[in-house]
């Protein structure tokens, strides 16, 4: 029943030593003083004040907590802070020089979210997918995204937005607003 265990279940009972951990998040280096078995998610949210990654299941099943570590979409709820190696990118770090990442722009143009709570995981999973495979087939999109759940069921528009990004990147043009609300 490892799923039911707490994040620090394997550590010894009682007070544990805090330790300093250095993280690079969205290009900025931070040092935090936490229990080294703390999941990355809580450090990002509660120590660094980031709002993109969020708790959905704590089990790595839904994708809400997704961050990108060295190009790999990673579940921060299951990643102990002491084991993090590499640069972390969160939803807040996708935009560059005030310009949204093409995936984010496609999400707006396609008007993807309903409640939007899962979209951190959707956007970052899509970004990592497209970085690895810039021209995925429909099947590759459906399979590559399947670990990211949405309970408002915006899947149809998410997949349309990913295809929109593929089209935009192929043509080198930016998607127009009008296309988003056809």
């Amino acid at each position, binding site marked *: 029943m490892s799923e039911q265990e707490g994040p620090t279940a394997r550590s010894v009972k009682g007070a544990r030593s805090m330790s300093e951990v250095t993280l690079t998040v969205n290009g900025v280096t931070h040092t935090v003083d936490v229990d080294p078995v*703390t999941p990355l998610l809580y450090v990002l949210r509660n120590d660094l004040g*980031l709002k993109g990654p969020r708790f959905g299941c704590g089990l790595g099943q839904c994708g809400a907590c997704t961050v990108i570590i060295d190009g790999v979409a990673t579940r921060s709820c299951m990643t102990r802070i002491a084991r993090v190696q590499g640069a972390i990118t969160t939803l807040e770090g996708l935009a560059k020089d005030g310009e*949204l990442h093409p995936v984010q722009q496609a999400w707006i143009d396609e008007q993807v979210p309903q409640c*939007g709570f899962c979209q*951190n995981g959707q956007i970052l999973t899509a970004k990592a997918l497209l970085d690895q495979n810039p021209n995925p087939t429909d099947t590759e999109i459906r399979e590559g995204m399947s670990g990211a*759940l949405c309970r408002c069921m915006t899947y149809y528009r998410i997949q349309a937005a990913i295809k929109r990004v593929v089209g935009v990147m192929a043509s080198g043009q930016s998607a127009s607003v009008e296309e988003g609300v056809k």
Partner: protein
Amino acid sequence: MTIFTSIPKKLEEVLEARAPLASRRDFLKTSGLIVVSVGAVAASVSPLVSAVGGNGAEGQGTGPYPDPDFRQLDSWIVIHGDNTATFYVGKTDCGQGTGTAFRQMMADELDIGYDSTSLVMGSTDVTPDQGGSGGSDAIQRDGWPMRRVAAEARRVLLELASERLGAPVEELLVNEAVVTLKANPSRQVTYADLIGGQRFDVSLMGRNVNETTGVAEVKPVEALRIVGQSPMRYDIPPKVDGSLTWAVDMTLPGMVHARNIKPPIAGGRLRSVDESSVENLPGFIRVVRKGNYLAVVCEREEQAITAARRLKADWEKPSSAPFPTSEELFSYMRAATPTSKFEPDPTGDPEAALAGAATVIEAEYDVPFQGHTAFGPAHALADPSDGQMTIYSNDMKSYGMRVGIAEFLGMPRDRVRVVWMEGPQAYGRTAADDAGFEAAFLAKEIGRPVRLQWMRDEETAWDTKGTAFTFALRGGLDVQGNLVAFEYNAQAADHNHVGYNEVETVLVSQLMGTRLETPNSGRAATPSAMYTIPNLREATQVVSLPMVWETPLRTGNLRDPNGPQVTFASESFIDELAAAGNVDPVAFRLGLLTASTDDDSGFKRARSIAVIRAAAEAYGWDTRPSPKARGEGIVVSGRGIAYAYRSETVVAEIAEVEVNRDTGHVWVKRLVCAHDCGLVINPEGLRRTIECGMLHSLSRTLHEEVQFDNEKVTSVNWRSHPSLLHADTPAVIDVVLVNGDPNPGRSDLPPYGAGETVCKPLIAAVANAIFDATGVRLRRIPFRDERVLAELTAGAV
């Protein structure tokens, strides 16, 4: 403009410091245009005055959060010095874009550009109580007072402009918040010039918030310019770039973290708690216990999670099983003595008609409990400072939560406020929100701001459930294949259905021992179709599981409560009857709809016919009976239709499926929805809401079922309560907005609700398509691979 991402400010903070212009107020009075003749029903003081003086209403004293007065124009609209406007409405937007639609409607009536407006929603101290959201009636019901108050503001502004420009109102034009003299367009004055940063001080009328009105009339539909357009949702960019502060993100100085410990066995009684099991853990603050409610509070979030999992507590098993197992559920329900029954007089004589029918068929359908299983577990932050209580919450019914928490804590209502913020999908789960109550209780106990969040296993096991149903149906056809009799019997496991944040119905107070004297009776609904059937009986009854209180199987409103279950049975059985008569499913339904010509004021029968025809046309429906001749391939395909209405909104949906005969896997390859909700405010927003609503029902069709043993719910995460995946998404979804008014004397239908209606027919449309593809009738959801394969095997497919 987006100001909703921060805590909404009170009117005093929004307005400029200057006092209202005395001359303007005098002018309005002397011109006879200010509405002061509201007599006994009018509030005699503005919300600003009542903040210090009180108005004598129940629960209103000297607290900091008096009820915003819906009979004051200032409670709804503020014109700023930069010629923009902020609208204040007592609704919440759960992600369907109602906030954008409200802005469109109000901007249209006010004659101001959409982009020059912003909207504040659902915070109980600054927005009038319109109940929050629920029932898909935001546009249908609540949009009207919003439009009327915006129209009234426009009327008052034109009167002010008339005085300023020295010309009668009839000689003025208004566009984009600028009033111009028709004869001399160079003479103009802006709304900001007239009233920017100041109060209107105009009273409104109406016995209740839904009737709120001034004397101005709303515009005819032909004059609406922003309604019917599709401005993009203002809430999407901050949700996509990570800048939005959600309720789950709220922090306060000194805030601590809490987690609940639920009974390991439903109905368990908490005998004792061993605090020594956690008191040495880092960050530990306190164990809080009252009755069977148990929580632990720590400095940091991960510390609270660990402490909650480590806390040793002794729970006494209940003396008898709280419920049957999920495998035994339907046989238990069929044998149970009903707690309530509803059996209206039948139409005609169904018994005699069935006895004389050429063909009689019978069928039973089953729907298990299904979870809300919100994507993010329940959460809230409560701040107990200075003798007040503020709850930051995503509760869709923030007003009910405020009243419930005030009663729960024994605090005057005007010392309690709920600040609504965005959260994970609501769909009825947050109509009875436990986390806000729990956070407020703990904050009061601890004396510090408490942020509480449920864990995934807790949310999936203990959230409110969609009602389980069993159905028994009989139908008779005459020799020509006409439907002559229909008998519908529904049983719902819905006894003690939870309410809307009432103290007695939230789980935390049940765990503390609170009981309603009489449990809510619950409900089992009847089909929503405009069919004319000469001999018809529709009987419903509610049954109870053994455990009534403190149960994880407490039923709540899950998106269109009862609709998907009932329509699965009724529209599947209509399909069975069509097949028994060897009639095309579309033709069979149209025959039942055209058998009569009487209609209601919303032309629901005529519009039902229209949506079925529109769906069939959009799909390219070929007229033939089901099932079709089955192919020999491993994957076989078919199509099915179903139809329903909800309130005045009518929809028809067609599903095209592929069924894998080797694995039982069903893929819904294409969906078509023809949708008529009258006047459409934002067509693109509506399309997405329709798509997502259908897919939510598709998830319930294919995947969702709450499973439990004799002691506890065993569905505790996304593996044991699975949900629709990307891989399940249809390749094509076609939405046809019909919105036809068959009355040539009217230019439009009023706007009706959208959202929940599309959840109704989807399950039956898929079941009917599977029957068309395979000849096998599935009468129990979810259609998981193993169940479908077993049925295919039994049917020798």
